[in-house]
């Protein structure tokens, strides 16, 4: 089995080339591995993560999902809906929807039957310890709880990849630990690949591979997960 996702000489400029957020990055992520992206603020970590899942389009180079280059918002929407889950620092929950509905919204159009969607949302939230919080809107939840709703939503369509941009950035130490335990546990138990952007050394150390970025380039760490790929491919 080839890599899950690959960035091939990807570049991203803003303001007509005046800002180069990502200069030239090649990176591949294997099925089931965990990768941490670290680096100073403004080094292009979030931009790489966005390019990795088509939330943003590169100015140059290409992104491949399971060996196939993906182009354009429509194709990326399909890939994200079926294979990628997100966790963001600011949770990104829809304020007018309850915890349960926030999870269900990811399944609309993907899993047929409202009852089925509801059942899955409840079971995911319950497994993350939110069984009592199903019908509360995000405003009524703590930061840690919100992030667990976001994780439940990310898992709704059984993704092959979870991308997380500073998932613990807005949380206290205790909640941060709990969230990291959930994410690394998932990666370990379900072989879901995990790409996580973080400032936190401790968080980065829990990942199988660490990549460091400075000024829009990878300066440290293996750009491919060969070792892991062999292990993953043998499965």
């Amino acid at each position, binding site marked *: 089995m080839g890599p899950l996702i690959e960035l091939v000489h990807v570049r991203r400029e803003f303001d007509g080339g005046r800002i180069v957020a990502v200069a030239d990055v090649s990176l591949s992520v294997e099925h089931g591995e965990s990768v941490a992206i670290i680096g100073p603020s403004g080094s292009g970590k979030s931009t790489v993560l966005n390019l990795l899942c088509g939330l943003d389009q590169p100015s140059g180079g290409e992104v491949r999902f399971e060996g196939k280059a993906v182009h354009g918002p429509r194709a990326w929407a399909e890939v994200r809906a079926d294979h990628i889950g*997100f966790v963001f620092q600011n949770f990104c929950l829809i304020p*007018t929807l309850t915890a*349960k509905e926030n999870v269900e919204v990811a399944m609309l159009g993907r899993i047929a039957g409202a009852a089925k969607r509801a059942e899955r949302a409840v079971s995911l939230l319950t497994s993350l310890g939110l069984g009592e919080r199903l019908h509360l809107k995000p405003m009524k939840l703590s930061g840690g709880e919100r992030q667990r709703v976001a994780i439940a939503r990310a898992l709704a369509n059984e993704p092959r990849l979870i991308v997380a941009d500073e998932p613990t950035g807005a949380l206290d130490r205790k909640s941060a630990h709990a969230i990291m335990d959930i994410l690394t546990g998932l990666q370990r138990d379900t072989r879901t690949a995990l790409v996580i952007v973080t400032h936190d050394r401790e968080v980065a150390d829990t990942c199988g591979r660490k990549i460091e970025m400075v000024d829009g380039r990878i300066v440290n760490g293996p750009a491919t997960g060969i070792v892991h790929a062999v292990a993953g491919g043998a499965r």
Partner: protein
Amino acid sequence: MNELTLPLRNLAGQPIRTFLTTLGIAVAIAGYVALTGLTQGVQQNFAGGIGDQGGDLMVSERNSFSIISSSVPEELGPSLKAVPGVADVSGTLINIASADNNANIVISGWPDGSFLWQGVKLASGRLPQPSDEWPVVLGSTIANGLQKKVGDTVELQFQDFTVVGIADFDSVLNQNIALVPLKKLQGLLGREDSVTLFQVRLDRPLDPQKVAVAKEDLQKAAPGNQVSDSEEFGNSIRFFSLIRAIASTVSLVVMAMAALAIANTLLMAVTERTFEIGILASLGWRPVRILRLILVEGLIMSVVGGIIGLGLGILAMDVVSKAGVAAGLMEPYLTSGIIVEAILAALLAGPIGALYPAWRATRLVPAEALRRT
């Protein structure tokens, strides 16, 4: 949760804005229904009322601008009556005036001995006699409205008439009519030897073939005039076409304004909810799905507005048709055609107004949208 949960939540999240926009649509639809219904009602009222008086065909001035501006020489009568298949003809002079300087009233002058008088169902009193000086038979609705009974006096066309009878008719026009002898009305209007139209009664039994032949022969006997049944008669009056055109134009403008209101509301909503739309996009909602979300929000407002508007429009028609200026001239006229058109207009206004905002929503780059916090 289903496909409607999110659009409904979004609309409920801004209750006042949603309410005002929906109300805007309701008012537009109400305006459309009332304008169209009333203008068609005026025409229907006249055409139906004149058809209800006992004639099968009418001979009137070709392309006359309004009913009361039609003029046909009275001397045409005998040659019309000589047409085969014609049982009887009666000249009719019509005018709209005020009764006792108050309500609108249609005055119709019929000749002594006209067959039209035989169709009058008297509720009380009697028909005019040649010996009466200024006799009038009132329709029962206007008699009620003016609180007149047999023996009372009513001022019509600046002349005091004595109520000799009160009659029941089926049509609103005739319920509000004043029937007087033709000669008296001709005198008052200065239109001696002229009538508005001839009512033509054909031999019984009526069959379409015979009606068509008689119509052709009548046309030959009355060159320069037009022979029509009551519906064709209504359609031929240019005044009616004019008010229908005015009503359509006003309705169109009002509907366009409703669509703009929706566009404005949803554009605001899309701008405010950029972040949320970014979330949906990041979850893999395809652009068409996001487009549909916004269109559905527009559609919900326009459907609800349309239904409320239909009710308001019917109510408005009722109120206007009973109000002083219009009473007796207009009747609410609600056809399934008007209802279907109103609902179609509402169904279109929503999505048309929502189209641009929805398109804008699909153009958002998720990464950009999600930066906005």
